[in-house]
């Protein structure tokens, strides 16, 4: 049997070699599909790697509370996608932060609420600046460095803001003399108490681009916008040994606080690795669908070429059957040809996908991410495509009548 498989492999290889251009083009169809899958997987892998590194930097004592634990299923993602963001109500409230702070072994808890608004300095005026509403604990949890001034403190947290590096440049064309100046948001004046150092990390588990953000106390944000949506609460544990106990305690405390409402999730360690935004899930889901479609199109190309190949080699099939090939032998011969075409396309796609991922890494922070899982997925997908789209032409070849086939000439 193994011997026969080897023969089938050799036959298929020589058949593919004979029609070099045709095989290359067919393989290319598969390669494009595989390349897009590789690109998406590599992108997702590198994003979760980035976040993993960040959480490592922040420390092993980080616990994150996020609203809507049911967000993982498809309906809620679709809901999120179709509903306008402003109408959504987060299940977390400012009071929950206070409740978490009271939990044993919690040393700090900071909410993250993002709102966009127009920020006005004397010189410039910017629409839709992301405003991060949090509290003074935030700096204890996140390793944010200040270039000038200080973070929010107990004394100044009302009416004070901290600017991101890029935002400061944009508003005042400078970073060094910004502290002490004021900005106007929704008619309220806020004093700038600090400017952050450059972070250059637009993808992170907070889903906040700190360089472009304006940070203020969540209560002030609540006052000017009327309502704040807490997208996550970062918690710092006092010790790293009992993260599980602490997160369970937080869970209990929150359920208690929210009168039994369990519409939130508490995670720590590697669980935090996916970005908070569902937009990420939606975009990668859409990309995956597009990639799957291109793979199916590639598969149809393989089927088409295999049908041509079977028709062209009808005479050969007749000869082979006459000298003793069983229908199964013929089936295997053509199935192998389709499989090898697909695997060849898969390898081409793997290379192409990583070239694209590398090119992408030049202009974005996403380093190409290679793992054996990705390669295994690629291999299995191409084999699957080969079998699905190769079986029909192979069956057609196998069921040909030898007498009629022998009469058939090119």
């Amino acid at each position: 049997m193994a011997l026969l498989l080897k023969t089938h492999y050799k036959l298929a290889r020589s058949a593919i070699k004979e029609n070099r251009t045709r095989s290359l083009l067919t393989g290319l169809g598969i390669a494009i599909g595989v390349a897009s899958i590789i690109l998406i997987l590599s992108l997702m892998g590198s994003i979760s790697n980035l976040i993993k590194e960040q959480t490592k930097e922040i420390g092993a004592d980080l616990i994150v509370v996020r609203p809507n634990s049911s967000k993982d299923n498809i309906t809620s993602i679709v809901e999120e996608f179709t509903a306008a963001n402003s109408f959504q109500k987060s299940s977390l409230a400012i009071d929950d932060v206070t409740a978490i702070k009271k939990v044993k072994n919690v040393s700090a808890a900071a909410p993250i609420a993002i709102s966009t608004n127009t920020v006005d300095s004397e010189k410039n005026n910017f629409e839709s600046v992301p405003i991060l509403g949090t509290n003074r604990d935030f700096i204890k949890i996140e390793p944010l460095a200040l270039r000038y001034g200080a973070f929010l403190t107990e004394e100044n947290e009302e009416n004070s803001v901290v600017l991101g590096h890029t935002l400061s440049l944009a508003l005042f064309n400078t970073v060094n003399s910004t502290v002490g100046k004021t900005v106007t948001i929704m008619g309220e004046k806020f004093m700038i108490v600090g400017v952050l150092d450059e972070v250059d990390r637009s993808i992170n588990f907070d889903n906040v681009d700190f360089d472009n953000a304006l940070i203020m106390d969540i209560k002030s944000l609540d006052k000017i916008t009327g309502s704040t949506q807490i997208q996550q609460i970062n918690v710092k544990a006092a010790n790293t040994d009992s993260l599980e106990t602490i997160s369970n305690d937080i869970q209990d405390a929150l359920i208690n606080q929210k009168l039994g409402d369990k519409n939130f999730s508490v995670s720590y360690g590697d669980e935090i690795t996916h970005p908070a935004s569902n937009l990420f899930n939606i975009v990668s889901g859409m990309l995956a669908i597009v990639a799957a479609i291109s793979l199916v199109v590639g598969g149809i190309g393989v089927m088409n070429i295999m049908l041509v190949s079977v028709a062209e080699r009808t005479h050969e099939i007749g000869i082979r059957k006459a000298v003793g090939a069983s229908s199964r032998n013929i089936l295997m011969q053509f199935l192998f040809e389709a499989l090898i075409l697909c695997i060849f396309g898969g390898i081409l796609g793997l290379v192409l996908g990583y070239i694209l991922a590398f090119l992408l890494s030049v202009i974005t922070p996403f380093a190409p991410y290679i793992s054996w899982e990705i390669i295994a997925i690629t291999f299995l997908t191409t084999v699957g495509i080969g079998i699905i789209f190769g079986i029909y032409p192979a069956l057609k070849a196998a069921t040909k009548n030898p007498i009629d086939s022998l009469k058939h000439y090119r």
Partner: protein
Amino acid sequence: MSENILIELQGLTKRYGYGDTESFALKDFDLTIKRGEFIMIMGPSGCGKTTLLNIIGLLDRASKGKYILNGENVASISARRQAKLRAKKIGFVFQNFNLIEDLPVIDNVALPLVYTGYSKTAQLKAASNALKRFHLNEREYYLPYQLSGGQQQRVAIARAIVGDPEIILADEPTGNLDSRASHIVMEELKAIHGEGNTIIMVTHNPSLTSYATRVINMLDGQIDTDVKTVSDANLPQPISVKIKKKKKAEEPEFVEISTQKTEKSDKKEEKTQKRKKSRRKK
């Protein structure tokens, strides 16, 4: 010598079409073929000669009737085993040679061995030996179109005998050849017959009947005349079993993979040996 009966056809009927278009390629055809016969089937076009050959060669099935091959009713043999039988017991020679144009001569000859579990080396060795017998060993890696018609037909015959089949079916093997090439091909077939193979050949050329031990004239799907020129007792027979077993130990690569090692496979080995001896003499 009833055990010497190789093929038995009883009431074989092959019908094409239905109703008004119904026609019979074979009609209640009875024929018994003994081992070692060289049968020539003649007759006008459309009298069912090729259909008969296809049915004997397990490429086609009769609409009605019984076909007993080696004492076994073919109707009860699975399609897979029929393919195996085609590979091991039956060799085909066609009028238009039917070689695979993309494969070199040696691979064409080795084709039946691909499906019988020979190793690649054994395949090439056997194919090379078969080609040597037809003085084509210098053209092993030619492609079929680079050979003359007579050479192509000899390649086809080499392919037919490479697996040591018992039955050679030839459908007008000289139909596309000039008289000189025809003569060479017929001499080869005669030599193969002399080694104890059964040959059934369809031809239009009456001058070739001198090679046969039996000439059958067909008309409208039935036997018109049936003349035996050699008595059954004088038919060439495969040599007896004894020499065989030694051979097996010497050449393990030729041992069959199938678990059923019957006397028949032994006989085959013997033939190989005999053939080699005759080559040495040459």
